[in-house]
């Protein structure tokens, strides 16, 4: 229905970023035959300033995102531009460095910046895929509705188990009391739990089939399977949302680190001038 940030405004920001990269590359190629390229030449300085400017502007996005109700552009413009200019930065900065990487603070800046950029690319992938995966996984339900359905099933399950033998009852009770949906970051990111108490209970009931009261056992089983299926989807839902959050909290600290490295780089460069 609507377009994603990548094709937004008919690729306007892709075109702008391509233009910046093209100008930088042409200048570099045109310049190279005369001097050994590096950050110290006039072209190097110019490219450095452009790269530094771009980086600060990219980081400003974090602030702009929280300034609401101002400006003519939508945040969508900013993000589209952020993505493409971030990619252009990779080119401009590489040219600025003249492909010279050693073990020093300058290269540390370069590496940090590239981490941010690569994480950005991963982020864009998430941004494009995530909504579709989330919507598909939810099948028209909200997370709240899924949870309510689980509570309901749980009640029915406990009621059914009450009429069965103690072992089944205990397994089912354990399942309804101890089943948890990822409390730690790790378990949330994992997105599934093949050893979940509900699964255990389901296996137990499956294994004990044939030991009498078969209709209530069947009913119990179908409900346990439904609950398992819902749990699977909720875990997936949590996983997806958590992934996105985790991604953002990786992208941002690295960009802050890169900014600090930039400051160090500029200071050292002028100090040793």
């Amino acid at each position: 229905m609507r377009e994603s940030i990548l094709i937004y405004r008919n690729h306007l920001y892709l075109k702008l970023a391509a233009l910046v990269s093209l100008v930088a590359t042409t200048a570099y190629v045109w310049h190279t035959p005369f001097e050994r390229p590096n950050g110290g030449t006039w072209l190097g300085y110019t490219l450095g300033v452009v790269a530094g400017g771009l980086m600060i502007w990219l980081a400003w996005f974090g602030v702009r995102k929280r300034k609401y109700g101002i400006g003519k552009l939508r945040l969508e413009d900013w993000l589209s531009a952020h993505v493409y200019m971030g990619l252009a930065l990779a080119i401009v900065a590489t040219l600025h460095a003249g492909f010279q990487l050693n073990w020093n603070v300058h290269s540390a800046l370069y590496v940090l910046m590239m981490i941010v950029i690569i994480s950005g690319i991963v982020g864009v992938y998430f941004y494009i895929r995530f909504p579709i995966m989330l919507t598909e996984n939810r099948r028209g339900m909200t997370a709240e509705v899924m949870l309510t359905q689980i509570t309901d099933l749980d009640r029915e399950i406990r009621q059914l188990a009450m009429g069965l033998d103690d072992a089944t009852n205990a397994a089912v009770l354990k399942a309804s009391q101890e089943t948890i949906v990822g409390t730690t970051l790790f378990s949330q990111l994992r997105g599934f739990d093949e050893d979940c108490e509900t699964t255990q209970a389901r296996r137990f009931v499956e294994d004990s089939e044939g030991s009498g009261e078969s209709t209530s056992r069947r009913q119990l089983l179908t409900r346990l399977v439904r609950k398992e299926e819902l749990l699977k989807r909720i875990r997936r839902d949590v996983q997806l949302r958590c992934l996105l959050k985790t991604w953002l909290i990786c992208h941002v600290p690295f960009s802050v680190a890169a900014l600090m490295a930039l400051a160090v780089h500029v200071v050292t460069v002028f100090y040793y001038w």
Partner: protein
Amino acid sequence: MGGFRGPALSTETYRIAIVGSGPGGLSAAAHAAKLGVSHVLLERADHLSDTIYKYQRGKFVMSTPDILPLRSDVTFAAGKREAILGNWDRQIAELKTNVRYKSDVVEIKKAEGVFNIRLADGDTVQAENVVLAIGLQGNLNKLTCPGGDLPLVQYQLDDPGEYEAETIVVIGAGDAGVENAVALAKQNSVVIINREAEFARVKQGNLTLILNAIEKGDIQCYYNAEPARVEPNAIILNTADGEARVPCDRIIARIGASAPRKFVESCGIKFPNADRSALPEVSSTYESNVPGLYIVGALGGYPLIKQAMNQGLEVVEYILGNKLAPADEPLLQRKFAGLGGADVDAIIAEARGAIPVFASLNPLLLRETLLESDVHVLKKDAIVFKRNDYTSSFFTIMRGSVGIQINALDPSVVVTLPTGAFFGEMGLISGRRRSATAVATSDCVLLETPRRTMLKLIKSVDSVRRTLDQTAIMRQVQTHLAPGVSVADLRPMVETVELKRYKPGDVIFNQGDKGDDMHLIRAGSCTVSMRVGGRDIVLSYVPSGNYIGEMALLSDAPRSATVKAAHATETIRIQGDAFKALLDSQPALKAKVEAKFRQRIMQNEQMQRRPEAGNIIQFLIEQGVGEGTDVLLIDESLCVHCDNCEKACAETHKGISRLDREAGPSFANIHVPTSCRHCEHPHCMSDCPPNAIHRAPDGEVFIDDSCIGCGNCERNCPYGVIQLASPPEEKFNLFSWLLFGKGPGPGEEMAYEELKYAGKPHADKQKRAVKCDMCKDIDGGASCVRACPTGAAMRVSPEEFMSVALLG
């Protein structure tokens, strides 16, 4: 207070008996007491002013309109409910007012110049004059089954937090019952009794709440059940499977109230028509058609405390035969200041003489209408409103003349309206954009009457409705059906038309019917659907300003599709023969109608091949999108659930987000979050005492500062998008949050969340209604949309969205 009763009253004939001790009645009684006139104040409850007594505890009562001076012997200023009631109790006692509590008046009959007032307990009171000040709250419906008067039955719930660990039965499946049940379920075990098989009468938000609670087992529900009898600690229900006994500690019956109209009519007072909101007619001294019987306050159409109090004092003066300039005199003086210093009465007389629509209004109504209207003194060539503005007020020309530019392409085509004519009625009726620009063609004086006042007039004065409709129909036909055809040429056809009203879902005509008429939609909107392979496929959404049904006429075939009203809809029904005759005499018009006909056939073809698009239209209509003018939709294939839209809204609107992204239904990637749709005919506006809800020229429905927090709009909005909230705590700026974590961060609604759930600590802060204002005061438009990083959030007009986006 308590159950104090006045002295035995049977012999004395009072000069004035006042029925109802609301602000109107108590002010009247206080004045009578002060003047030493023999009087009695009859109050049904055992305390004064029952309506205000029943406000939520700690409610901040407002003294709107601020510019209206108070004229009463008891004082009143904005403040807490408790303070105001305490104050009145004291002053009524100090003035030695003769109050008779627990006196429910059931009959008022006049015999030989004296009113006999019969009370529920059988006593009668005699008086020469009666002032009815019973307000509009009416009588709460009571349980009629045996045991309905047992002490465990109550009809009101002040504070759900008061009860704990009880078993409570709530009877009634309307909004009040559902809200009570849900609130009580937090601390009690609750059973709700529904007479029907589903909760058909409640708002969407309440529906979700109650169904969730029932599903979760928090509330138990008996469907298709009715109380059979009540026992001291149980209720017996008649259900589909026979009787059921539900033991309980408390029964709360919320089975509605009956309007006071029946009682008022039984006193001999006439209403102008059967409309539910019609008001009894009174003279400028508040006297009804029964001589000696007076009406003041909310019952007479004045829904605010201060107005009621002023009228209370005035009516006593009038009964004593005194003349009194009404309290609103200074307001009118200020209003008319620009008219060259003539006095108020002269100007009112001028308005009556010059403007035929207003000529038939009684003096009080005319005065009220003028008071609520704005007076515009315009120079020649000034623009009154522009084509495509969303305003819905009504204009009358008191002096000078106004030109209407009826042709969008050529502003020189102007129809000139003389003094006395009116315009703007089309926007009023359709709730849509202005269809033409209006310009002053000479220096002129215009009265601009707000939509609400006009609707009240249309409902209560038949002659206003008739005059308005006659002119409007011709103009609507000319604008939407036959532009460029002269009034004279249209007249034969327009004389045969008929106005039709439809409720949502009503069929206007069915596929296969014989087609001998067509309809021009003048308010609301319709869906066109076709039965294909046993299924109804929605082909299109037709908003007002369009005609339907011409296809069968032109092709002399049966109806090819079914047309249903999507919302409350009004159409102008045109006879087929008259329409054909018009087409035959107007070749240019015929060509245009035929072109539209071909276009529709093509569109229907396309849509039949895309049933999923029709399903989306159907879904959106069900969500009320069709009656909106600007709706927030979220494309779920793009939304990353970052909630930046909500944060943006909160940040730009005093910390309270007016949209709830997660809530609301979805269909085929389209999600309709809980957010205002800016309805063509906003339901929220219909019952706002201070008239605080308006529509801005760009269509935004917004609430201004005069809101008194009564909550009517919250109840009236079917989409649950209005909240009552008090101003949240102050925020620190962005950097102190980023760096030091001070205060709630951007978009974090600490104060609001607290308010929503905790209630108590904030309850005595002044609460007001808040809703989306479409960011009308922010340059660049909707903050929510602008803050969406992925472009998933969009604000669209349903008309564009349902035609272009889905087909394209």
